[in-house]
């Protein structure tokens, strides 16, 4: 039974996501469109499963939702901080630095989400990944404590992502 389920839904979360996106694209919720979205949501992951061999085995949806709330709040705070820096701090007083974040995450999907989160949150842009994928290069706009930035990324985002991706 679970074998059939795995064959039909190689990626249940992607199925759900495609259904929701299709319904939103239609701009009005009707049963027919949801069903059609569901059909697309079954067919597309099934057809593309061959090209995505090492996909994550599952995602903890509740924890992901929690993470999204935290990140959205941080994006708001980050924007006000960066806007303040842009408007008030002269160029000569900026202290931009590179920060190296050693990664505990292994899955490419999780690292991608982490890198995206870093770019959208306080004063940091993720710039590059090391050649073997063990650390992430982050550029900070203005900091006097690079170790603090690294620890915050590790504690606030990476620890949560480790629990989301199985």
């Amino acid at each position, binding site marked *: 039974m679970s074998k059939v389920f795995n064959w039909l839904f190689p990626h249940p979360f992607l199925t759900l996501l495609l259904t929701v*996106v299709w319904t*939103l*694209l239609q*701009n009005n919720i009707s049963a027919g469109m949801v069903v059609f979205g569901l059909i697309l949501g079954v067919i597309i992951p099934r057809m593309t499963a061959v090209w995505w061999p090492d996909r994550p085995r599952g995602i903890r949806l509740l924890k992901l939702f929690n993470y999204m709330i935290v990140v959205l709040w941080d*994006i*708001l705070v*980050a*924007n006000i901080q*960066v*806007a303040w820096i*842009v*408007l008030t701090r002269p*160029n000569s007083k*900026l202290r*931009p630095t*590179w920060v*190296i974040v*050693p990664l505990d995450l292994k899955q490419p999907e999780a690292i991608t989400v982490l*890198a*995206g*989160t*870093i*770019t*959208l*949150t306080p*004063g940091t*842009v*993720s*710039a*590059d*990944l*090391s*050649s*073997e*994928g*063990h*650390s992430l*290069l982050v*550029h900070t*706009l203005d900091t006097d404590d690079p170790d603090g930035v690294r620890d915050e990324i590790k504690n606030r985002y990476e620890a949560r992502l480790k629990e989301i991706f199985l």
Partner: protein
Amino acid sequence: MTLDAVLIYIAGIWLLIGAIFALVGSIGLLRFTDPMTRLHAPTKVGTVGIGALLLAGMIHAFVTGDGSIHELLIMSFLFVTAPISANFIAKVHIHRRTCETPPKPLKDKTWSTLDVPEEKPKGVEVEA
């Protein structure tokens, strides 16, 4: 009727907030001197600016009667794609050495962008 008027004003306020953030993002892009610091302003301030503008659009659509949820989709696509374009620009700067060269990573040999084979000197034939 009054609720509609209040909602229109709320949409207007969001429109203003979005415009201010977009303006600040552009100022940041013009003001900073280093290519990497210039990346910071548009990636962050830009997303919230456009997010606020879309929220205003959504409120206005609901007030005028034809509710629209496309904006949610635009917002989520924007949040997913903005870091990727920023990452590409950063990689180009690292690759062309137009910014400060980053320090070595801790465990691995080098950064993946700098991990390119040495160019063969021109005019030198490799003997078989």
